[in-house]
């Protein structure tokens, strides 16, 4: 709740200390004293869980008295007999006391259930395994005719070094698992392959492997894109060295999907002809599988449409960006972009949660070394409650968009006119 006292030419915004159905107390700095007593009206905004109500009280409808003088403020009390205020205050007090009781008496999932209809009991229901969960998700994909009939370009992500090596050992345009056994019309449209991890620097393969992968892709008329993750300072030199080994040997206009501002700066400064795609982690938005319980509208416009953003993206040589299908139709970007699906990033750790769990027995432990990793993520993963449709892979937490691989109209709405590539990001 907030009360805005209005004079003819100024407003004085006050939050209450204590609310009752007859009025409220509040504090004011000494310099506001005269103004508060000469206001023509007060507008009181009551904020409820899903709406706001404004109650306007003319000066004749309330009284203000001084309750106490303190060193930095005066404590005042407003009282009114207006029914409109009383009703609004009663509702707010009831809402606050109900919430406070719940917070005291209930565990958080139960509180969510009472207030949002969140199915708390399902937090204890897990799929039998990570692979069974993914199989179940993918087996319920039923692509509509749009996926076969529409014209679009698609890409695959090979994020693990093992996948890339597997790709290199097969002759012809055969992709490793999980793509090899994934039967979906999108596979007929693949003309691009992303090599490398968007989230973890330890999953970037050696320079010769990346060069061979790019060469093989080019031979097969596939467009190779190098994917780069966020990089901490001590690891930066290694990735920088890797780029210096491979970029001079790749075409001038080699495309890179970059998720680190420092790497973007380095690439633009040293390889100005390279095509830089702003990676999905740097296009920040609210992405949470629990959004349907909150009944929130998606944002009306992407942050990058602000002029200040546009100019700085251009200064950094960023010519395209990325977005992710996230179970809501979100407004498309105005610059060319890639749309990642069906998994969308919700959270990423740079003290890899998986390594911490395996090394210390606790997801919040300290990893033994920041600069070395045996890539346990190729063998282990986190499983989350089944109903949430999310999975803990590598050093990140992903949501699974259940509509993305079935409903092409939904995907088309997320593509707008500027998306020129759908990127399939399946996990093994």
């Amino acid at each position, binding site marked *: 709740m907030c009360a805005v006292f209005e004079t003819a030419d100024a407003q004085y915004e006050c939050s209450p200390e204590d609310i009752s159905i007859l009025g409220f107390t509040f504090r004011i700095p000494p310099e506001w004293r005269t103004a508060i007593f000469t206001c023509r009206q007060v507008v009181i905004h009551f904020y409820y869980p899903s709406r706001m109500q404004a109650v306007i009280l003319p000066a004749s409808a309330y009284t203000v008295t001084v309750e106490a003088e303190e060193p930095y403020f005066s404590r005042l009390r407003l009282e009114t007999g207006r029914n409109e205020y009383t009703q609004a205050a009663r509702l707010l007090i009831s809402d606050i006391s109900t919430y406070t009781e719940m917070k005291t008496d209930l565990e958080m999932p139960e509180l969510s259930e009472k207030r949002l209809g969140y199915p708390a009991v399902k937090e204890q229901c897990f799929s*039998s395994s990570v692979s069974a969960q993914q199989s179940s998700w993918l087996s319920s994909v039923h692509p509509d005719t749009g996926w076969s009939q529409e014209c679009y370009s698609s890409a695959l992500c090979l994020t693990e070094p093992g996948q890339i090596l597997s790709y290199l050992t097969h002759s012809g345009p055969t992709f490793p698992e999980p793509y090899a056994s994934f039967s979906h019309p999108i596979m007929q449209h693949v003309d691009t392959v992303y090599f490398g991890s968007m989230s973890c620097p330890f999953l970037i393969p050696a320079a010769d492997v990346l060069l061979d992968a790019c060469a093989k892709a080019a031979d097969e008329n596939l467009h190779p894109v190098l994917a780069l993750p966020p990089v901490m300072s001590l690891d930066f030199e290694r990735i920088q060295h890797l780029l210096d080994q491979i970029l001079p040997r790749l075409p001038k206009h080699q495309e890179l999907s970059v998720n680190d501002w*420092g790497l973007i700066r380095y690439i633009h400064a040293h390889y100005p002809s390279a095509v830089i795609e702003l990676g999905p982690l740097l296009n920040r938005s609210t992405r949470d599988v629990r959004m349907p319980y909150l009944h929130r509208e998606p944002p009306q416009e992407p*942050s990058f449409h602000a002029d200040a953003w546009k100019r700085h993206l251009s200064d950094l040589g960023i010519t395209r960006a990325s977005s992710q299908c996230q179970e809501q139709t979100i407004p498309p970007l105005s610059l060319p972009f890639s749309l990642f699906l069906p998994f969308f990033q919700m959270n990423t750790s740079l003290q890899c949660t998986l390594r911490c769990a395996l090394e210390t027995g606790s997801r919040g432990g300290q990893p033994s070394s920041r600069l070395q990793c045996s890539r346990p993520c190729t063998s282990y993963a986190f499983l989350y409650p089944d109903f949430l449709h999310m999975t803990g892979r590598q050093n990140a*937490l992903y949501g699974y968009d259940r509509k993305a691989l079935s409903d092409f109209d939904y995907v088309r709405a997320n593509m707008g006119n500027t998306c020129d590539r759908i990127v399939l990001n399946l996990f093994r």
Partner: protein
Amino acid sequence: MKGGTDLKITAGLGRVEDYPAFIHAGADEVFCGYVPDRWYEHFNMSSPLNRREVRYAHVQIGSRNELKILHSMTEDFGAPAVLTMNALFYLPNQYPIIADIIQQCVQDGFQDFIIADPGLLFYLQDAGVQIRVHLSGEACVMNPQALAIFDSPMLRRIIFHRHLTIPEIECCIRSSMHEGLEYEAFILNERCHFHGGLCSTVHCDDLAPMCQIPYRCENIASGEPIELTVSEQDPAVFGSTGCGLCAIHDLMTCGITHLKVVGRGNYTDCMLRDIQMIRHAVTVAESSPSASAYLESVRSLRDSCSHNCYYAI
């Protein structure tokens, strides 16, 4: 009370009335959220100005009356308050409104703002707004090259993210070309398993933080589960949600100027205990000739700690 030392403590403030006690306990500065009524009127709770989508707890400076009272207190106590405008992103139509809010705060005497959205930083820079920016650890600045992108005459302080190690922090400080910058590191509370700058999930009254959702770990091929210990967080234990007390000497010698005690919305008593403990540790660190001597001196504190470490020592 403050020790008059070089290494300063900045503490999270959820309510104006806690300010004097926090400064007496040893904080040199506070940081707090401020969400004016007009922000809620335009955008309600679902578009947070500073990463707190919370209505039912004291985590913000409520409105302008409280902000002005806080400013009077800072003038008397001589310990500044920094305002957080640290959402990870804003919508294009929100930038001018935030700039107006910031200008009004400047009129009310506040000069320092924590910013995490590069877009907001660029907007304020282009608009010629004269403030001192503390670049949030959640701006996704993880290396010196990224710092160079966000360098600006407005930049006053770099806040290093929780997941940076001390050598990584040191590398960033040594590489900085910006003279006179301040550097802040997290020292206590709320050490999340994930990177805040890469966290896209909601933090609101009605849902648990995403990192508290139950999970299991298993071998992908065999489905064999791995036994994990899920730590119980007892707020009565110092640093139960994250502590860097052992690292204070190392942080001091690598160039850190400010230590952050997280706690907007924490219980006042817990915050007072936390600030006092860190103040004591800072005093010990500053009089210790070496990191090992410091660790020896704070051994008794370490024995009763949570062992939920911010930094590996």
